[in-house]
């Protein structure tokens, strides 16, 4: 924040004491002494160290204010090109995460039965020895795949993949299917170049938002919001949101439409219908770049009328016509945003396909102010910041779970995998697990059907050895044999960056701003040590003497290198330009040397694709000019994708080549009077399991009552604050495991009546219902949950939310993958509600 000097108080110019205009008894300070208590902390002898936040996955650049070796404050780093000096509450809360009085700071060994909460403090030497023994044995038996690694969010993929690859295990389980697989797959099938769209929000005039909560939860959060708010202030940009709940994003939108869950794709198709039938499209662009004739797509859209969309979604047909015209009129300075509201459904892949193609119709693809993307979703690991040699080869062993073939789009482009089926498949003994490491996640609380996850983690036959690295005693750590104290993001190193909203790639650094508390350590220290102890050749891949030495190599191409990064926190190449219209870039002579062109399609190939072993496409001849095109099989924007059809066929699944509306089979069965559709949402002050140890964030939101529309409440005989029992059910139909309508679990909670939710919906936020980690994260738990003695924080004894409602939503939500990609359908659960 820049303040003009004159904007600031001229306190020094001691004015004479004066009485206020009215209250004659008022006292005015005449002395300059500073009575204790006026001064806050962030002045005086402070230093500011740049680093990158990891309270969520947006990784904003921040500055840590340090005084006397203690972190006092987090503010934005203006030198970060993505976040440009802005942060949200989750980042500002950094000190409360670092100094959480209930942090686990020492290695712990289970001494009672698993899950009994009986622990003994051990040394790192003991922990290393036990883990290395177990892992060495598994590896030497020739079954490295029996060592499974479960991660949640991971911003240290370089070191983690190096360890897992050198060990030889392919059993690296992630959370992408719980996150964004459908959206990514839709983009990869249609555009190809990237799995993350980045509207040019700062320069746009119109945003159609399909269930994307960028003011609260979306990856890109503050960097997106600040740009959209700029477009609104400077250009009068309009924001229209379709969402089943009044999210904060819906709240700041110019118009909000409360839609029935799972109908976003149909809305996009109906808008497309209007654009095509009224000729509002950019026909010239489509004729040049769409792989499917515009007129044929118009015919395909014939059934998707605004009237059908009105019946299904609730948005009036006339409104849809108006919005289609408004959107098209602003082209190419218009774009969409989409998130879990549109894609975390059984039909989510098709929904996001329809939304992506809607953009193509108006020709905003890659345009200034339009629907853009960048080929790099992080810094350039291949060319500019390559990993130091030797790099271990990829594992040759196979993992049935990581390669789950039943969902053909899960691993078609990127290895997104199907996270929600991992513990079901371990239970079904589809893959033997001899050791499990949990890293930066809390699957026992945050995975759907968490009861099943807990059951598997408790079972010493299914999971004979489990060690967990976490900053706190999570529900998952509670079910481990060893708990290792992890560093917070304020105590560790990473080379990091996120999809660049300025459309120019950059690189940042995460660095410790204080020495790690207690005996906490990060994987950058743990994995090289384990590799040396396991041996068998693993150790050769970790030749550097320190993390700093490794990062010096990684940052060698930055002018000023590692030292520059430590001082500034981020670097962007000033010569680079935004990634506008990458498909129109002509190929140069060097690129074309040795290439060949298919005379029919115009596709230019050169060399061999290492993955497919087929000729590698590098571009397309358009009107006689060789250009880069889209990185799809046709090198065009694929309105029609034959590739996904073929992938489906390989596992006997029918995948539609064109965007379609697929009614959700379970919901098509209808809802009884006491049945509602449960949707899940995130508050702006929380992210996954990592913010609930923050006293300052929990003070803002610590409970999760069930949001219900007043009309629905009336029908069910409920008033504000009434107790209800909610029972979540597996789907009654659909291509999912166990589609038998059976109950998953029940919870008691209270209703919060609000106009801000669809009448057929019951909305729960995810950020409550923990039972481990101490009274900040798990209100009311101190008596029956093991936590370390709190360290030095008087707040620890006065946590005011001990009676907060706490509903673990994942005890209600079934394992529910989209049949194409495996994306978890978070927002399709049918629940039964009764007064309790």
């Amino acid at each position, binding site marked *: 924040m820049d303040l*003009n000097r004159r*904007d600031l108080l001229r306190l020094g110019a001691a004015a004479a004491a004066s009485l206020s205009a009215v209250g004659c008894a008022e006292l005015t300070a005449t002395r300059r002494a500073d009575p204790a208590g006026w001064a806050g902390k962030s002045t005086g002898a402070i230093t500011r160290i740049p680093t990158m936040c990891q309270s969520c996955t947006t990784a904003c650049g921040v500055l840590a204010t340090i005084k006397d070796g203690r972190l006092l404050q987090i503010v934005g780093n203006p030198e970060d090109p993505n976040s440009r000096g802005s942060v949200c509450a989750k980042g500002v809360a950094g000190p409360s995460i670092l100094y959480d009085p209930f942090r686990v700071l020492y290695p712990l060994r289970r001494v009672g039965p698993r899950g009994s909460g009986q622990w003994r403090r051990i040394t790192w030497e003991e922990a290393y020895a036990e883990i290395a023994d177990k892992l060495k044995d598994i590896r030497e038996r020739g079954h490295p795949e029996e060592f499974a690694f479960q991660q949640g969010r991971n911003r240290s993929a370089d070191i983690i993949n190096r360890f897992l690859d050198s060990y030889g295990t392919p059993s690296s389980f992630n959370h992408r299917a719980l996150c964004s697989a459908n959206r990514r797959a839709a983009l990869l099938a249609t555009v190809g170049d990237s799995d993350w769209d980045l509207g040019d929000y700062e320069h746009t005039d119109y945003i159609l938002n399909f269930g994307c909560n960028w003011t609260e939860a979306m990856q890109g959060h503050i960097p997106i919001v600040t740009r959209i708010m700029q477009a609104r202030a400077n250009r009068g940009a309009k924001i229209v949101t379709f969402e089943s709940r009044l999210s904060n994003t819906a709240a700041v939108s110019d118009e909000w439409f409360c839609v029935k869950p799972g109908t976003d794709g149909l809305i996009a198709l109906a808008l497309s219908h209007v654009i095509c039938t009224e000729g509002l499209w950019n026909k010239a662009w489509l004729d040049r770049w769409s792989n499917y004739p515009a007129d044929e797509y118009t015919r395909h859209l014939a059934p998707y009328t605004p009237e059908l969309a009105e019946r299904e979604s609730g948005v009036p047909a006339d409104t849809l016509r108006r919005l289609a015209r408004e959107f098209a009129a602003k082209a190419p300075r218009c774009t969409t945003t989409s998130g879990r509201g549109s894609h975390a459904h059984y039909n989510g892949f098709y929904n996001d396909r329809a939304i992506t193609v809607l953009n193509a119709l108006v020709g905003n693809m890659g345009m200034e102010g339009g629907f853009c993307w960048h080929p790099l979703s992080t810094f350039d690991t291949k060319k500019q910041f390559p990993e130091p040699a030797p790099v271990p080869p990829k594992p040759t062993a196979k993992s049935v779970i990581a390669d789950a073939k039943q969902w053909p789009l899960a691993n078609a482009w990127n290895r997104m995998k199907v996270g929600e089926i991992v513990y079901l498949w371990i239970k079904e003994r589809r893959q033997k697990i001899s050791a499990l490491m949990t890293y930066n996640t809390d699957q026992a609380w945050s995975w759907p059907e968490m009861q099943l996850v807990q059951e598997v983690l408790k079972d010493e036959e299914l999971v004979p050895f489990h060690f967990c690295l976490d900053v706190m005693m999570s529900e998952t750590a509670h079910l481990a044999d060893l708990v290792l104290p992890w560093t917070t993001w304020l105590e560790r190193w990473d080379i990091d960056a996120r999809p660049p909203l300025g459309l120019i790639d950059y690189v940042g650094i995460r660095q410790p701003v204080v020495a790690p508390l207690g005996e906490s350590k990060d994987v950058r220290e743990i994995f090289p040590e384990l590799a040396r102890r396991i041996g068998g050749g693993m150790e050769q891949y970790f030749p550097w003497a320190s993390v700093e030495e490794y990062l010096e190599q990684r940052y060698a191409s930055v002018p000023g290198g590692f030292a520059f990064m430590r001082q500034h926190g981020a670097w962007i190449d000033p010569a680079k330009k935004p990634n506008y219209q990458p498909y129109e870039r002509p190929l140069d002579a060097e690129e074309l040397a040795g290439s060949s062109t298919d005379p029919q399609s115009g596709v230019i190939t050169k060399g061999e694709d290492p993955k497919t072993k087929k000729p590698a496409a590098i571009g397309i001849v358009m009107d006689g000019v060789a250009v880069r095109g889209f990185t799809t099989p046709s090198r065009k924007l694929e309105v029609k994708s034959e590739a996904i059809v073929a992938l489906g066929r390989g596992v006997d699944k029918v995948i539609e080549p064109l965007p379609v509306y697929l009614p959700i089979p379970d919901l098509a069965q209808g809802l009884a009077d006491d049945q509602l559709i449960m949707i899940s949402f995130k508050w702006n002050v929380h992210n996954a399991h990592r913010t609930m140890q923050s006293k300052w*964030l929990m*003070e803002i939101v610590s409970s999760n009552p069930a949001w219900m529309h007043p009309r629905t409440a009336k029908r069910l005989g409920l008033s504000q604050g009434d107790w209800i029992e909610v029972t979540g059910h597996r789907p009654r139909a659909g291509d999912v495991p166990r589609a038998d309508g059976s109950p998953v679990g029940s919870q008691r909670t209270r209703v919060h009546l609000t106009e801000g939710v669809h009448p057929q919906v019951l909305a729960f936020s995810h950020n409550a219902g923990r039972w481990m980690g101490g009274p900040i994260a798990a209100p009311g738990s101190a008596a029956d949950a093991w936590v370390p003695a709190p360290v030095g924080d008087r707040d620890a004894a006065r946590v005011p939310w001990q009676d907060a409602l706490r509903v673990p939503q994942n005890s209600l939500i079934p394992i529910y993958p989209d049949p194409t990609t495996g994306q978890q359908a978070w927002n399709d659960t049918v629940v039964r509600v009764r007064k309790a």
Partner: protein
Amino acid sequence: MARLSMLIDLRTCIGCHACSVACKAEFDVPLGTLRNTVKYVENGQAPQALRHFIPVLCNHCEDAPCTRVCPSRAVIRLDGGQVVIDKDRCRGKQECIEACPYGAITLHPDSHKAQKCTLCVHRTEQGQAPACVEACPTKTRIFGDLDDPGSELARRLAATPTVAWREHDGTRPKVRYVDTRGALPLLAEQTMNPRTQKQRR
């Protein structure tokens, strides 16, 4: 004599609470007490239901009841117009807590003295913005001197109609709001902290 104040433009607030947490961090404000927060209020019926985000802090009223009621004369006004508690004088009698219509003053549970927003006088006198202003990602809060016509605050106030929270109470609150959607009246019955009955120790 300056009249330091804040302009809060509700058109850009996204309710993120960066300001709330920045204040907590700056002063280690104890759990259960607030010096600064963001209120959420809803009105209207679907499909026109609305939610509003309203950052609130001490209004540093020009006719501040808290300054008159303290038996220890510990609630004082600084030269910049900030109303602050003189911690050395405060004996925790809580008269000010009861007197504030906004519930902006609380008893610190450890020191048993009154605590409230100081407009970050320790920062502003060194040329830094208040912590909540610095933390705001959407530049919703503008800090400055009402008496300085060249300040961004004064220029914005001259250009845009503004209102104050519970202006009718007559305390002449100094924090001004751009409130195009009529959100502030919805806060009428609310306070920052509950104004609990004074509990004499």
